[in-house]
C-alpha cells in the first residue's frame, strides 16, 4: 500500500492547522502503568488540556509497530476516543484504555488488532467506527469531507472492500466535478456496500440512495 499520494494526503490531514500553539509540558502526575507513562512523556498542552498531538500520535503508532498507511492508526485513534485526526485527549485516553482493559504496549497493540478482527464479525461495531471516521476527516468547520480525503481513506478503513475501492476510483475519475462527500452519502455508502451485488444488477435509481450513487453505478456499469 505504498500510495505516495495517499500518504501525502493523510499526513497532510494529520498535520495540525498552523494556528494552534503547542508547548511541551512534562511532569504530570503519572501512573506506574506503562501507557500512562508514555502519555505523560509525550503529551502537550493545548488550551490547558493535556493532549497527544499528531507527531506524538505517530510516535505511538511506530512504537506499536503500526504502518501509518494502514487501518491500525485510525482504529487506535477511535478506541482512544480521539477528538481529531492524530489528536487524543487525556480523558479519552484513560477511558479508552479502561474500555480495552490494557496497561501496556503489547496489550494495546493486541486490543487494536482484535478490534479489527472483530469488525468482520460485528457489523454494528464497524459501522460505529466507519461513521466516526467521517467526523475525523472533516476539517472542523466544514460539514463535508473532501473527495480527496475520501479517496485516500475509504479503501483503507474498509480493508479494500470492492465497493469502496470502486467508489474511490469513481471519485478520482470525477475529481473536477465532485468535490465533497456529505455525511449522508458517507453513511449510505456503507449500506450500499453491504447491499450491492458485484454486477450491480440490484441497484435501482428509484430507491432512496443519494443521487451521487446513481451516477456511480452508471459510471461503473458503462
Amino acid at each position, binding site marked *: 500500500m505504498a500510495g505516495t499520494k495517499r500518504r501525502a494526503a493523510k499526513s497532510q490531514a494529520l498535520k495540525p492547522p498552523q494556528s494552534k500553539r503547542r508547548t511541551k509540558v512534562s511532569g504530570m502526575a503519572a501512573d506506574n502503568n506503562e501507557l500512562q507513562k508514555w502519555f505523560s512523556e509525550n503529551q502537550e498542552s493545548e488550551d490547558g488540556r493535556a493532549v497527544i498531538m499528531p507527531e506524538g500520535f505517530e510516535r505511538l503508532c511506530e512504537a506499536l509497530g503500526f504502518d501509518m498507511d494502514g487501518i491500525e492508526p485510525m482504529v487506535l485513534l477511535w478506541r482512544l476516543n480521539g477528538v481529531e485526526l492524530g489528536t487524543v485527549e487525556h480523558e479519552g485516553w484513560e477511558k479508552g484504555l479502561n474500555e480495552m482493559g490494557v496497561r501496556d504496549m503489547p496489550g494495546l497493540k493486541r486490543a487494536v488488532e482484535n478490534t479489527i478482527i472483530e469488525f468482520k464479525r460485528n457489523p454494528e461495531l464497524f459501522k460505529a467506527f466507519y461513521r466516526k471516521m467521517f467526523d475525523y476527516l472533516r476539517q472542523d468547520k466544514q*460539514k*463535508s469531507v473532501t473527495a480527496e480525503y475520501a479517496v485516500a481513506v475509504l479503501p483503507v478503513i474498509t480493508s479494500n472492500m470492492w465497493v469502496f475501492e470502486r467508489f474511490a476510483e469513481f471519485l478520482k475519475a470525477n475529481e473536477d466535478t465532485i468535490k465533497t462527500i*456529505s*455525511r*449522508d*452519502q458517507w*453513511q*449510505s455508502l456503507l*449500506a450500499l456496500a453491504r447491499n450491492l451485488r458485484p454486477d450491480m444488477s440490484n441497484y435501482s*435509481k*428509484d*430507491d*432512496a440512495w*443519494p*443521487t*451521487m450513487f*446513481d451516477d456511480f453505478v452508471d459510471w461503473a456499469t458503462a
Partner: protein
Amino acid sequence: MSFANKRPGGRILPVRRLTPQVDPQKQFEKLATAIGDIYGHKISQLSYEELYRTGYNLVLSKNGALAYDGVKGVIESHLDNCVHKNILGHVSALRTNPTLSTYEAFLWSVRVLWSEHVTAMLVIRDVLMYVDKVYVKDAQLPAVYDMGMNVFRDQVLLASHKRLCVEVTKSVLSQISSERRGEQVNRSVLRGVVDMLVELQDTDRLRTVYETSLNPQLLAESRAYYQSLAKSRLADHSAAAYVLAAQADLDSEMDRVDAYLVPFTGTALRSVVLEELIDNHASEILTIDDAGLIELLDQRKVEVLGVLYNLYAPLPKALSTLQSRIYQHILKTGQQLAASLAPLESKQEGPQQLPESKPAASQTLTMAAKTTMALRWTQDLLLLYDIYDEFLRKSFGDTADMRQTIYDAFIEVINSNSRAAELLSLFIDDSLKNGLKRKSEQEVEHLLDRSVLMFRFLQNKDAFEHYYKLHLAKRLLLGRSLSDDAEQSLVSKLKVECGSQFTFKLEGMFKDMQLSADLAQRFKDIDRSEPLDFDLNVSVLTPTFWPQMTPSISEEDKREMNTVKPPPGPLCDSIEAFAQFYLQQRSGRRLTWQYNMGNADIKLQFGSRTYELNVSTYQMFILMLFSADDDVSMTAAEIQQQTHIPENVLARQLQSLACGKHRILTKSPMSREVSSTDLFTFNYNFKSAQYRIRLPMVSAKATIETEKEKSESMAAIGLERQYLIEAAIVRIMKARKQMMHEQLVSETINQLSARFLPTPKMVKDTIGRLIDRDYLQRSPDDLRLYKYLA
C-alpha cells in the same frame, strides 16, 4: 263445419250414458275418416259436435288410448303419404340438379305440407279437446297439438331414411348463399320454412329444430364464407373499399335476418361478420400499402373513417389497434413538424443585428426568420389539431376514449419539443399583436380556446408562465396589443385551466396598467400655470408582478442605470412632478425609474423637414443633448458622462441612431463599432420618404430567444423549480412527520405536476440537499424512511 245441430240457447246436452253396445272401434273409425277429411279440406261436411262427442265417448269408455294413439297413427301415415307423393320427387330432382329453382321447389313443397298440417292440427285439437282435458293429463302425454307437431317432425324431417331435415337445412343455406352472391331468392318460402323450424321442438325438448339444425350450420357456413371473403378482399382492396364493403355486408345480413330469420341469429351473425372481416384482420386492414389508415387520415376521408370506426368500435382489440395506430401517426406527423424546426437548434446564430439593417450574407438564419419558423410550428400544430378534431366529431362519434387517444398523442407531440412553452407564448403574442386583425369574434374565441388547449397539454407550465409574462410585459408597455378583450379573455381561460395562483401575477400586470392610466389622467388634469406641451405617460409597475426584463445586464450596469436622469428641462421637471404627485397619493413607497424600458414619440426638425420619430427613452435623452445648439458634437464618452447610460447599453442605442437604416446622427468614423472616442453630430441632411419613423430599438416584435437568452431563461426557471420542489417536500414532511422514499417522491411529483413535471432524480437531489441542511434525516432502522426534523 256446420253448427246446424247446435240448439238455440246453447244448452249443453245432458250427458248420455254410454252403452256397451257402442263399439269403440267403430267410434274410432269415425274419427279416422274425419281426420282424412280434415286434411282433404272437406271440413264443411263434418259435424263438430258429433266428432267431439266421439272423442268424449271414447275417453269415458276408457278408450282414450285408442283415440290418441289411433289418431297419431293416422296422422303419421297421412304425412308419410304426402312426403312420398309431394316431396320426395323434389328431393331427387334436387340431388341430380341442384339449382336455385329446384331448391326453391323443394322448400316450397315442404312449406305447403307444413301449413296444411298446422291448419289441420288446429281443427283436430278442437275436436279432441276432451281428450286433451282428461286423457292426456292422466297419461302424461303431450297435448294433441304438440303430438301433431312431434309427429310432423319425426315423420317428415327426422325420419332417417329420408334425411329431409338435412335437405331442408342444405336448401335454406344454399338459398342464402345465392342471395349473398346477389341472386334473387324467394324470401316468403324461406320465411315459411324458418317459421316451421322455429315452431318444432327438437327431441331433447329444450330447443327448437331451428336452434339445433339450421342455426349452428348457418353460423358455421357464414363464418367460412366471410373468412375467405376477407382474404380475397385484402389482396386487392384499399382500406376504404374493404371497410365500405364490410359495412354493406353487415347491412345486408341484418336485412336478411329481418326478412326471414330470427333475431338472436342476427346478433350471432353480426359477431361472426365483425369477427371474420374486421377483428381477425384489424391491423392488416389499417396497414394496406399506400391505401391504409394513414392515407385515409392524410386525405381527410371523414366519412370512410366514420364507417371504419363504427366497425371497429364494438371490438375491443381492434379498437385499441386502431387507437394506437392513430396515436402513432399523430406522433409521426408531429415529428415532421418538429424536424422543420431543426435550423433553430443550430448552434450558430446570425450575427446580432438590428432587424432592419441588411442581413449579412451568412448561411445562418436571422432572428426574424427563426421567429417566423417558430410561429409556423405552432400554427401547423393548431391546424393539425383542427383536422383531428374534425375526425373526432364527424368520424369517431365524439367518444371519450377516442378523444383521450388524440389528446395523449398531442401531449406527446408538444412535450417532445423542448421549446414548446416559449413557442406557444410567442404564437399567442403574435396573435394578440397582429394575428387577430380581420378575424371575427368567433374566430378569435376559437383561436384562444385552441391556444389554451395546447397549454393544457403542455407539461412545463411554469416555463410558459415565464415567457408569457415577458411577452405580455412588452405588449403592455409598448401598447401593442390589438384587443384588450382578447387579452383578458385569454387570462381568464388560463385561470380556469390552472387556478388563480397561476394568473395572479398576470392579472397584477393588467391592474398596474389600469392604475397607471388612471394616474396619468389625473396628473394631466392638474391645474397648471403653463400646460405641458407633451404627454407624459408613466407606467407604474409593482415589481412582484413584472418579469425580469433585462436579465442579461450585469449588476454593475444595473446600478449605473439607476442613476440615469433626464436632461434638465421641462421633461425633467415634469418627471419630478409626477414622482411627487404619486408619492403624495401613496406615501411610503419608492419609485425607481426604469428609463431603459420606455419609449417616446418625438418630433425632430432637420432643416426644413420635420419627422415624427418613435425612439427609446434613452435615445430621447441622447437626442435632447443635441437640441441645445445647432452645432453640437459629442464623443461617445461625453454622451456617457452626461447621461450615465452604461457603456454597452449606450453603444447599442447609438448604433441604432447612427448606423441603421435611418441615420439621425452621423458618426465618425462610420464603422459599426462604437468606441468612446467616436464623434456624433446631428444629421441635418437626414431624409426619409416616411413622415413617421420607428427606430428598431423599440421593435416590439418578440423574437425567439437567442442561445444566450435561452440559457438564462432555463437557469431562472430551473432555480424556481428547485425552490418549488424544496417547498413541496418540506410541506409534505411537515404534515406527515415521516414517509418512505418512494411515497415522498411520488407525492412531491404529484403536488407539482400542475406546473411542471419534476423527475425523480430532481426530487432525490433535493432530498439530499434537505438532509444536508438538517431538515430531514433518515431513520436509523430503515434507510428508506425519512423523518422530519422540526
